[in-house]
């Protein structure tokens, strides 16, 4: 197996493993649009990273975290409905990113790679960044699992029972921000949320516990990565979209299998 394919496999599979449990929270807490907004803003992070000449993964992670904090602050003020606010931020940060990139002299970047991912171009350095980031996210998810679940089920009850609800919510947003920054290389800013949502949505119908749903989503995500890369290798299709197409296929399959009684 050529090196680049091995790197692509490792990166894709580790992302799918983390996206299962994290994406389950995105589905349960109805944060799909939040994830979309963060990922759109990632392009602005790229543009600023190039402009300031810093490591792009770091730039994107920092950008996503900043936007997550800004969103929480703005939502707290309640000037506008959440979805309106998210829509404004998603598209203005995406556009601003494109404009800044266009204004940056002398640098030509492959925009398509950032929008739709370029899994097969991942190098060793990229892979280490990814494994490091995803490892941190997975560890924190494991440690916070029960508390995250409690806050998701009923925030006030969790608060009365002594949980630091605001900190836990913020932690979840930061975890999502990190995963989005990492996943951008793999499926691109426009497709990241699909990996967070589609596998959990497919696993949900046949799960009886939150953990079954999370693990099922991880497995389906891994299968989608394998299927997508296989498709890409044999049919010469773009890797990121191929993975998403496979995930959507599994979703359809899960919907057509009757639920256990």
């Amino acid at each position: 197996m050529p090196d680049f394919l091995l790197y692509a496999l490792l990166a894709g599979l580790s992302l799918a493993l983390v996206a299962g449990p994290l994406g389950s929270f995105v589905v349960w807490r109805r944060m799909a649009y939040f994830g979309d907004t963060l990922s759109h803003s990632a392009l602005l992070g790229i543009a600023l990273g190039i402009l300031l000449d810093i490591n792009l993964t770091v730039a994107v992670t920092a950008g996503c975290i900043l936007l997550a904090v800004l969103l929480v602050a703005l939502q707290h003020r309640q000037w506008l409905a959440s979805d309106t606010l998210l829509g404004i931020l998603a598209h203005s940060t995406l556009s601003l990113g494109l404009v800044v990139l266009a204004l940056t002299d002398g640098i030509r970047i492959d925009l398509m790679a950032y929008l739709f991912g370029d899994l097969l171009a991942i190098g060793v350095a990229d892979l280490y960044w990814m494994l490091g980031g995803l490892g941190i996210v997975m560890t924190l998810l494991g440690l916070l699992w029960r508390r995250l679940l409690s806050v998701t089920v009923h925030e006030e009850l969790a608060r009365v029972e002594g949980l630091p609800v605001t900190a836990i919510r913020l932690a979840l947003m930061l975890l999502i921000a990190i995963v989005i920054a990492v996943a951008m290389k793999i499926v691109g800013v426009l497709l990241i949320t699909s990996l967070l949502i589609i596998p959990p949505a497919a696993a949900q119908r046949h799960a009886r516990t939150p953990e079954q749903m999370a693990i099922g989503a991880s497995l389906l995500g891994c299968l989608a990565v394998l299927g997508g890369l296989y498709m890409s290798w044999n049919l010469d299709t773009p890797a990121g979209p191929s993975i998403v197409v496979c995930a959507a296929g599994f979703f359809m399959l899960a919907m057509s299998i009757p639920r256990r009684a």
Partner: protein
Amino acid sequence: MNEPLLDLERISLRLHGSSVLDQVSLRVMPGEIVTLIGPNGAGKTSLVRIVLGLLKSDSGKVWKQPRLRVGYMPQKLHIDATLPLTVDRFLMLSPGVKRAAVLEALVEVGADHLLKRPLQQVSGGELQRILLARALLRKPHLLVLDEPVQGVDVNGQIELYQLITRLRDRYGCGVLMVSHDLHLVMATTNTVVCLNRHVCCSGHPEQVSLDPAFVALFGEQASALAVYNHHHDHAHDLHGEVVDTPEGHQHGPNCNHA
């Protein structure tokens, strides 16, 4: 025994520029059931949220017994349909709870047959019992129940109130609960606080049901419990604001007393 679990002194709260609570004082003793009643928008839930520490009052003092464990039963529980959660898993979310304790709490509220049922598939009355079990898991000194009988039919309501009384007897905990309906809680509560942003009247349920302030606030609904001869020191306008009435009670369309 003589020290209250909870003592609120002259609590005031303004939300979005309008007064929600005005100089409300309240105290709950160990083993005592205190029921907050009042019309919609009277500030009952806000007061409960202040007790729970979910909301900060603008002025006034909240005193709680040191290391007071509070069991809270929220008004409703909405769980996204995509979250597969069985009743036992829901109860296990309470911090530091063992499986045996979960079953025990469910038996206590008469809902042990629901142990493995998905939370989205229980009825309104069953859900109230499950929420009560979650509150009990805290081994509370004080139970705070926000409309514990919401969405339950009348027979179920009476049963739930009886259950709450039994639990109080058994654990000796104080209970602070919100209710709409004085009739049903009469038999099970020690103290009624009639709230309409300020404390209209408070005391034993019989006493409150006869209080002119209560009658004026609840009008026709409460008139079955009202007696005929009383004096009023204030009246309420349509918004529930206190209106000064030098000559006593102003008779409204809902009054059927002389």
